[in-house]
């Protein structure tokens, strides 16, 4: 056959036909062969799938994650009652009177909710100097207030009351429950879904409203690039523009230093972005703002002094100019030099003032967590401090927007202390820990978050105050949210749940479910059993798998809805657990679901599994700290062995006891699977593993 083909070809070529004809001929053969191959392959596939059909359920056996059975109906009811209590008492009051309301409620005899109340957000440390004076007159001047509610170990349940900006009934078709309410009452710990460009990708504002009862996040850099600031002004703040009745937080654009790290330069004045967008809008916006502020910072634009004041660390030179892709530029002024845009603390804050979110973030100098040069991190930390002062100065809407400062300092405790010492003295209403979750070792991450909220050990100004919002930036994995919550943080944000949804991955209690995998083809169960989101109610894993295999874009939307619902529901379960003082059980169940069942099911991969690394080099030298841990771990093992022996003697006793043993077994299994950094975290947070 092959010879035949060759012969044919040679005959054709000998006839001196034009080359194209020969090409056509051969390509035809090739395509035929390809087709045959495809056919064969297809047959193979079919065979495989038939085989799979028989062994399918055997092959893809799943272990179901544990449910949160330790939470009784009573627990849920109590928590819901509590949430309702705060809604009823704080949703419709004037923010001015919030202190009075709190005091009044505290003095009520049968009030059980405010016993843990430490002090309100601005009683002891609120506001800057001028506002301290105002405070004495009794009127609360800010738009945000945190009320401490409950603690379970170091985990805390807080209430954040934020004044609403949404003007309901302004042409909105949705009949929102929030109609008439003055404030959003947020229960923490809470995850804030991210709508980078002011909308969560693919969702209608109505869906966003139904999903996110509390707060969402948006980004100044992106917003000011794609919108005219006039839009926000005309629409009365971003909340009304996107028709979102609850709260909005805008990030300053500092994070883009990491996400767009190859396109930025850091100067003392601010960050220079080699813009990824058409710069028409952002330039117009900046001009618009600067035209209105007769501030000192005008000089940046007029006199072009930027290059003179370059920080010695920053290599700023011809390479910036060479990256400019817009040819029609004049290098007379810095800003108009191609697509380079300067985002200074002043500009960032003024932009955020115009966007009008409820919480705005200071511009910080974020460095990658992997930055090896400690000097650079030190510089960045101090620069963040200096920028914060400028941010506070240029913040013009203090009564309606709360400014959060950001703690920097990389993975260095000393620098973190210095950062906190400076920033907490600025007496802001909330503080964020930045620069984490950028690929650093989990052990380091735990040390930093443990340290920054360690109010019992650290001296004042070296931990985030109890009566202020604590926000960790860039946290989105379920386990990370759990860990941050047990260290007493309130707010988290990350694009992870929504982004991973667009990569066909669903969140579940035992890790992530990659619905594209063949194993879900015949899986007629919902994505997550008992999940109340409407995607899980209407669709099965098999139908989502089919939509993915058919490349139907609707899958992105469905999984986005599921993931946001899931992560917010997770936070809800966590809050109920904190409220009922069952955080130990909650942590154990979540860890067991992920580190034991999730690993078994192939849905969870343990990050930084230091135990595995140790197993391979078990006898190698260990540094002191780790060794301590190992010793303790060994001790645990021995104890367990003893216990096991004991149990074997009484194994034929009651059912309760076998249940007990089973739990003990599970905990042992869990402890074996947990990496050292996590065990350490549990110890720091004083969490006891138990079922």
């Amino acid at each position, binding site marked *: 056959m092959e010879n035949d083909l060759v012969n044919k070809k040679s005959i054709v070529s000998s006839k001196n036909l034009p080359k194209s004809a020969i090409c056509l001929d051969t390509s035809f053969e090739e395509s035929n062969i390809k087709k045959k191959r495809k056919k064969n392959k297809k047959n193979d596939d079919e065979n495989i799938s038939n085989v799979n059909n028989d062994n399918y359920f055997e092959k893809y056996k799943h272990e179901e994650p544990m449910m949160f059975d330790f939470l009784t109906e009573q627990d849920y009811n109590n928590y819901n009652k509590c949430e309702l209590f705060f809604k009823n008492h704080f949703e419709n009051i004037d923010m001015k009177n919030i202190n009075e309301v709190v005091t009044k409620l505290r003095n009520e005899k049968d009030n059980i909710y405010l016993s843990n109340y430490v002090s309100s957000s601005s009683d002891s440390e609120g506001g800057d100097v001028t506002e301290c004076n105002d405070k004495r007159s009794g009127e609360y001047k800010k738009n945000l207030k945190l009320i401490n509610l409950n603690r379970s170990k170091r985990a805390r349940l807080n209430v954040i009351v934020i004044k609403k900006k949404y003007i309901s009934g302004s042409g*909105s078709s949705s009949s929102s429950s929030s109609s008439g309410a003055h404030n959003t009452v947020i229960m923490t710990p809470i995850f804030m879904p991210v709508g980078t460009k002011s909308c969560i990708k693919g*969702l*209608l504002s109505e869906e966003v409203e139904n999903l996110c009862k509390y707060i969402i996040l948006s980004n100044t850099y992106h917003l000011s690039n794609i919108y005219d600031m006039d839009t926000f002004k005309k629409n009365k703040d971003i909340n009304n523009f996107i028709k979102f009745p609850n709260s909005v937080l805008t990030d300053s654009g500092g994070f883009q230093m990491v996400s767009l790290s190859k396109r930025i330069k850091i100067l003392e004045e601010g960050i220079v972005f080699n813009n990824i967008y058409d710069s028409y809008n952002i330039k117009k916006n900046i001009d618009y703002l600067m035209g209105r502020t007769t501030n000192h910072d005008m000089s940046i634009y007029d006199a072009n002094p930027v290059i003179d004041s370059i920080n010695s660390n920053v290599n700023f030179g011809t390479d910036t100019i060479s990256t400019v892709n817009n040819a029609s530029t004049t290098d007379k002024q810095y800003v108009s030099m191609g697509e380079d845009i300067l985002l200074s603390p002043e500009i960032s804050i003024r932009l955020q003032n115009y966007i009008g979110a409820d919480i705005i973030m200071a511009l910080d100098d974020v460095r990658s967590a992997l930055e090896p040069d400690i000097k650079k991190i030190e510089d960045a930390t101090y620069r963040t401090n200096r920028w914060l002062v400028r941010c506070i100065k240029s913040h013009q809407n203090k009564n309606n927007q709360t400014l959060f400062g950001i703690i920097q300092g990389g993975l260095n405790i000393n620098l973190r202390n210095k950062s906190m010492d400076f920033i907490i003295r600025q007496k802001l209403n909330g503080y964020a820990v930045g620069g984490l979750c950028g690929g650093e070792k989990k052990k380091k991450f735990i040390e930093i978050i443990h340290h920054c909220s360690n109010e019992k050990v650290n001296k004042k100004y070296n931990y985030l105050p109890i009566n202020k919002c604590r926000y960790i930036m860039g946290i989105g994995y379920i386990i990370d949210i759990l860990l941050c919550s047990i260290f007493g943080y309130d707010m988290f944000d990350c694009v992870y749940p929504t982004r991973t949804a667009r990569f066909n991955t669903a969140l579940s209690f035992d890790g992530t479910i990659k619905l594209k995998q063949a194993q879900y083809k015949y899986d007629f169960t919902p994505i997550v059993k008992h999940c109340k989101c409407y995607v899980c109610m209407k669709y099965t894993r098999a*139908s989502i798998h089919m939509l993915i295999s*058919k490349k*139907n874009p609707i899958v992105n939307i469905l999984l986005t*809805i599921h993931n946001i619902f899931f992560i917010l529901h997770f936070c809800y379960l966590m809050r109920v657990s904190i409220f009922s003082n069952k955080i130990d059980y909650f942590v154990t169940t979540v860890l067991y679901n992920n580190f034991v069942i999730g690993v078994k099911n192939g849905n969870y991969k343990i990050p930084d599994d230091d135990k595995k690394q140790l197993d391979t080099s078990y006898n190698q030298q260990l540094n002191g700290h780790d060794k301590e841990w190992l010793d303790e771990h060994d001790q645990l093992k021995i104890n367990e062995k003893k216990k096991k022996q004991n149990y074997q003697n009484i194994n034929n006793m009651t059912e309760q006891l076998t249940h007990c043993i089973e739990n003990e077994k599970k905990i042992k299994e869990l402890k074996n699977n947990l990496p050292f950094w996590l065990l350490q975290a549990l110890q720091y947070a004083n969490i006891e593993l138990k079922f």
Partner: protein
Amino acid sequence: IVCWQDLEESLRMKLSLTKVVNGCRLGKIKNLGKTRDHTMDIPGCLLYTKTGSAPHLTHHTLRNIHGVPAMAQLTLSSLAEQHEVLTEYKEGVGKFIGMPESLLYCSLHDPVSPCPAGYVTNKSVSVWSVAGRVEMTVSKFMAIQQALQPDWFQCLSDGEVSCKEAASIKRVRKSVDRSLLFLDNCLRLQEESEVLQKSVIIGVIEGGDVMEERLRSARETAKRPVGGFLLDGFQGNPTTLETRLCLLSSVTAELPEDKPRLISGIGRPDEVLKCIERGVDLFESFFPYQVTERGGALTFSFDYQLNPEDILLQQNGTQEEIKYVDQIKKVEVTGCNQEITSFEINLKEKMYQEDFNPLVRGCSCYCCKNHTRAYIHHLLVTNELLAGVLLMMHNFEHYFGFFHSIREALKNDKLAQLKELIHRQAS
């Protein structure tokens, strides 16, 4: 000779005409669905879907649209590969895809992506999915239908001749013969299956552009116990349209009055009206989907009670934009964007950047009530998923509204006004 008695169960749906004006049929189809409690108005359209879901829309967003047709159109090409899964699932494609309450009609091909010719044999027809060709014999076809459990399904048929410009009479005759053979075999298999008896087979009228064959196809198909008729292969470019419309009138004259007539591939409002005049009852709704995919919004007016000036105002708002309509036409002529019809506006155009009007003034769709043209433009430019969602919502609602308007006009003897209005916007 087959005895068809056992199929009576599947034919219990009833079409009753309230009025026939100039060939246009106004009426209701009753006793639809497995529970026999659905009704559908004619003339009407089906809900276009991609792999069983309305494009861009979740079940939840679909509920925000007014006037969604009771029956959705599934395409076998997109679902054929799911055969085994659905067989295993046992409860039918409707529940599988999260639309248990919708009536389902399963067509062979996707009207938006026509299939390549040359793959029909005496024994099988091929459909094309994302992964490639799926060859279907009668038995495989019926097995798939048994797994899908649609309310109606298009019978296996040879529709290739209408894709070609000029098919030989011999080929055309073959297509009719084959389609009738497929139909008989399908009916036989349906008779044997209890599950399939709950579904209704829609017979397909083939015959290309040959009058004689079209008539034969219609007469022969009408003799068989089908639930309705699909008029296949009448779509085409404007030059062939006139001759095909002529064929259409002759074909519908041969069909029994009490069974619905569906047509494939016809979507433009002006063409829809022409087909309704020739006795067609049901259309697909791929047209609003195509408009959405090219970043367009349907803006044509179908309010036959408005005077012409109000219509222009409703559509365009300002004088400036009326000028712009001419621009679109120019674009059409130059061929940069051949597809864009005069029934829509292209929101990707920069002129909409600061247009804070709704897509269509007075439109009651979710998109027009909540968002502006500028916002949609921005979503399109930044490639947000939401652009497709919002445009699809508007375009569907607009298109469904158009069909509602046709029925109202028929009821009130105002179809001439509506036709005139659509005709004016057509060129």
